[in-house]
């Protein structure tokens, strides 16, 4: 029997639960020919901002124990070029895989401008709002500032009928608080999690390896943090959650799904093996077969806690 991997979510049907994570699949086209994009659940584009951004000086990536550090600096072609040069390819080449546009900004209005500017275009399903960005008006990051996050989510919501997914920042005391803020302000879903702030030092030259000094940590190293934060977000609000962080196998993905994720994203693993996301999908499928489970949805949030345990 072929297990059912489809997930109905955000008013559409995802043929499979695995998406490529933002920043790790470019605008899709870069992977064309290399992997069967249209057989995946979908992909999330590199961040898009109102104006083009040139990004950080090298080195931008390096390996860390069991993972990597990156500081790309949200380099992207900007709203206009994205709409005219990148979206059409996605529209024409992806029939089944769903596309989310990852949105960044320095102010609430910049986020709103990207969403309103793209909303009439074709070739994508919805938005993933990357709130791990400094708020130039507030000083802090949107993703770690309750008031700024509430304002941002509410504002973006008013610009579109499309699904709005908020991608949460991991370095907060209680991600549940931020999950509820997104819910109360009209988000349709959450992505957990973005990278952890980190730093790598070249001890021989006494300088940071990364041109930007600090960067974001991703890869297998952050898997257990991501599973925890996904569980915490999924159990403190009622929004559907997309699990992200360190996934490189069906077993990793199923940890997120049991913790409450409806979908997952694969990022760093694609650098190690471009086929990683497709393999994760196959491994999920064979696990279901082996366990005699008919449909993946039976497992979403299926974690069983010991009686005495409190969340």
């Amino acid at each position: 029997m072929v297990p059912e991997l489809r997930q109905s979510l955000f008013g559409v049907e995802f043929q499979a639960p695995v998406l490529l994570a933002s920043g790790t699949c470019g605008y899709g086209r870069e992977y064309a020919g290399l992997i069967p994009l249209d057989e995946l659940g979908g992909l999330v584009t590199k961040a898009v901002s109102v104006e083009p951004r040139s990004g950080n000086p090298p080195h931008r990536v390096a390996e860390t124990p069991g993972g990597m550090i990156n500081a790309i600096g949200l380099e992207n072609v900007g709203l206009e070029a994205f709409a005219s040069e990148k979206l059409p390819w996605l529209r024409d080449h992806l029939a089944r895989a769903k596309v989310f546009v990852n949105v960044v900004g320095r102010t609430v209005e910049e986020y709103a401008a990207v969403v309103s500017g793209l909303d009439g275009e074709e070739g994508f399903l919805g938005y993933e709002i990357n709130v791990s960005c400094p708020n130039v008006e507030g000083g802090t990051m949107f993703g770690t500032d309750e008031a700024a996050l509430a304002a941002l989510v509410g504002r973006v919501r008013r610009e579109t009928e499309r699904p709005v997914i908020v991608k949460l920042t991991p370095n907060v005391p209680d991600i549940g608080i931020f999950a509820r803020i997104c819910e109360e302000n009209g988000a349709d879903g959450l992505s957990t999690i973005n990278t952890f702030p980190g730093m790598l030092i070249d001890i021989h030259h006494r300088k940071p390896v990364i041109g930007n000094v600090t960067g974001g940590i991703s890869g297998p190293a952050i898997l257990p943090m991501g599973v925890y934060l996904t569980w915490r977000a999924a159990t403190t609000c009622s929004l559907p959650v997309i699990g992200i962080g360190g996934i490189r196998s069906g077993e990793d993905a199923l940890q997120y799904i049991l913790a409450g994720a409806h979908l997952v994203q694969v990022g760093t693993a694609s650098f190690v093996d471009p086929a990683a996301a497709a393999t994760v999908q196959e491994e999920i499928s064979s696990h279901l077969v082996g366990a005699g489970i008919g449909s993946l949805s039976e497992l979403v949030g299926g974690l069983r806690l010991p009686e005495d345990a409190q969340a």
Partner: protein
Amino acid sequence: MISSRQVATDTCWLELDSPEIADRAEWGQFVMIGFGLDHLAPPFLPRPFSVGWRAEDGRIGLLVRAFGAGSRRLAELRAREHVLLLGPLGRPFRLETGSRVACVAGGVGLAPFLFLAGDARRQGFDVDLLYGELTADKVFDTRLIEELTGGPPIVWTEDGSVGRRGRVTEGLSVEGPVTVLACGPTPMLRALAGRAAREGFDLQVSVEEHMGCGVGTCQGCVVQGADGRWRKACTQGPVFYASELTWSPS
């Protein structure tokens, strides 16, 4: 992975079985090599290595020098270990004007020229292969170089312990129409780029930068273009005209 032999201190010549890559690789292209997702120790991320050789029978050759933890592990590869190869990747060297080619190799920057020099000579080009190392112990087995390239390299060492004494760049003469190609440490490329600008000859360089994906998705591998904008070393390079890039001193 078929065989590995140590050809100089910390330096190995790896022969791997990869018909697709052997069949399609062009001069100066590279492969990403790693151990796959179960391997968490360095190299967890795959590392870029120039295709140093391609054989009719589907083998490719890589010249690997132990630099950090990742390349050390690769230099220790044992026969019958399996690796993950992605490639061939990137823009190749182009042979142009005239029939003379001067290749300037610094250290393991020799790799792409092992491949190119042999082919080019067979195609009737007159090739100078200038090869520099710090010291004699680092010098790649010259008999093997001749075998692969069909001619002797002109070896330079900074301490003069073998070949000519000094920087390999001093060995470059650019009288007449000649295609100049260079691969090696950035300071060497910078020096050559300066000279190319002053003396007004075309120079193609193969640059190095940290890489994530190797295929253009992560934007991790940028170098600065002459216009100040970033270029991706993996897809817009690794071979650039020196004049396309900014050569900031450092």
